[in-house]
């Protein structure tokens, strides 16, 4: 993992022998090779990110006078966000969503799976891991229908299992549903990350822990955890970032009922395209970008320290 997402280690130039550029590409052609990718990234990733700052200080709207000639309103959008109860609500729900489904749900379930599957029979392991991975790779729109059907009021599977026909889970307990859904959806990543991290725990140490009669919990805390601490931190940061930016709550509840499941991404969509307030939603997007940037910088710093 560190090798794929960590910054590339700089290879010291060798004193003798062939240069790195063995095929003789040369710097000019190398820049030419980079150009198309950088142009596309610049146009569709960097430029929008920077433009958010500008739109965020205007009163630009989807329709009306401000759509034709938006004017600069300074930090008005940001002061509006400070006093916007719906935005505070979205922040709070996003925190709940991240805490419940990523930090607790995916992390713990992913670790439990990696830990138990380590010594399970290959057939059991393949089946369970296959199911968890399937939940991860299915298209999000399809997954949304699976869960809408699962939670359905009249014939939903959950109500059939619990014998609670008539309970409209998505309406009565929308956040609980979203947390369950996202735990199911994203656990595969943590499971795989912890599986590979656990391979770094020396078997001899596990063996000695068993010899001195340590309980399972003691072994986990004193032997396993010190080896994977860095992985736990980086995994938690990554899945939190993805969860906070996840748009799939929209597919299940559209933010409803009455804003009860309106996480920040859904709120941005609703303000921008339902309410037409492009300026205000850009200001909120910019805040989300800053939060992402802070998490990503912390993540990269941790990765670099580990290697």
């Amino acid at each position, binding site marked *: 993992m560190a090798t794929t*997402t960590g910054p590339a280690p700089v290879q010291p130039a060798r004193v003798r022998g062939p240069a790195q550029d*063995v095929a003789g590409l040369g710097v000019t*052609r190398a820049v030419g090779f980079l150009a198309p990718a950088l142009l596309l990234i610049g146009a569709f990733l960097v430029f929008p*990110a920077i433009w958010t700052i500008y739109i965020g200080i205007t009163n630009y709207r989807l329709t009306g006078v401000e759509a034709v000639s938006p004017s600069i309103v300074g930090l008005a959008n940001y002061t509006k966000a400070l006093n916007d109860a719906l935005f505070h609500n979205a922040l709070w729900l996003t925190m709940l969503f991240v805490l419940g489904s990523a930090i607790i749900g995916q992390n713990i379930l992913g670790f*439990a799976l990696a830990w138990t599957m380590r010594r399970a029979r290959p057939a059991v392991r393949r089946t369970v891991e296959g199911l968890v991975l*399937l939940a991860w790779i299915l*298209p999000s*729109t399809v997954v949304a229908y699976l869960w809408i*059907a699962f939670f359905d009021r009249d014939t939903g599977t959950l109500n059939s299992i619990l014998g609670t026909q008539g309970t409209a889970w998505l309406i009565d307990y929308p956040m609980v549903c979203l947390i369950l859904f996202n735990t199911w959806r994203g656990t595969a990543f943590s499971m795989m990350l912890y599986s590979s991290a656990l391979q770094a725990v020396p078997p001899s140490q596990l063996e000695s822990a068993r010899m001195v009669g340590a309980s399972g919990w003691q072994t986990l805390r004193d032997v396993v955890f010190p080896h994977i601490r860095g992985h736990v931190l980086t995994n938690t940061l990554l899945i939190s970032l993805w969860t906070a930016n996840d748009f799939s709550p929209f597919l299940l509840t559209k933010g409803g009922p009455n804003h009860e499941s309106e996480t920040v991404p859904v709120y941005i969509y609703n303000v921008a395209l339902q309410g037409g307030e492009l300026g205000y939603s850009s200001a909120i997007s910019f805040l989300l970008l800053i939060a992402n940037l802070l998490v990503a910088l912390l993540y990269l710093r941790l990765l670099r320290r580990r290697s």
Partner: protein
Amino acid sequence: MTPAYVVRRIGFYVLICAITLFFAVPMLWIASAPFDASPGLGVGWPDWTLENFRKTLSHPYAMHSMINSLLICVTTAVAVTAFAALASYALSRVRIPGRDALLYGLLLLSSVVTGTAAMVPIFVMMFQLGLIDSRFGVALVMTGGLLPAAIFILKDFVDAVPKSYEESARVFGASTLQILRDVVLPVARPGLATILVWAFVNSWGNFLVPFLLIRSIDKQPGAVLLQTFTDEGGSANLSVIPVFSLLFSIPVVVLYLLVNSRYGFRFHGGIKS
């Protein structure tokens, strides 16, 4: 075999069963409803029929949206793979000034500028460029979004290609382009295939970008159209939705199995964004 051990083993299997059920039960619907004569949102042994498949295949937009998905995703996957291959080779082999800063920036970009954080400016930009309702526009936006991570994953593959291959080709007088085409390209094929599949699968499942940018129903890819299937009464069309969900999932699962069996599933941090 102490009693405590037996209890622990039983507890262990109960836990595994519970976790398995948690992951399996929500999927049962897509396995039963498509084949049921009176499909609903419940799960049960189906009253077998293929009538739903006939209805889905003759739906005016269903199969058309699969073609739209295919158009968008093939364009995206090919563009991502081609541009990422060129960029990652240059970054891996040539000491371009500012390379490390560039790599660091790409790495940040791949996780910071998410679809949700950038949806408003992307919508406004495409609106002003007149690329709303264009499948090509959707492919462009997706390509830009996937490229940083693709470059990173591919650079890892290219770094692992031994330089001695290129060196010996050079000794025998091969030109740069010959080396790239006949030496580097074949060796990097597993990496390229992985990226191609990864980009395809990611864009196949992407809902937000086409949802924002495509208006007319005949241009919508499957991921968006699936949200809009209704019957004459305006409620969800349950003879089409399950079948379409199933058909729409098949390419993703097949491609995943293909990459997994041919190249083994290599674990890439952040491969799914």
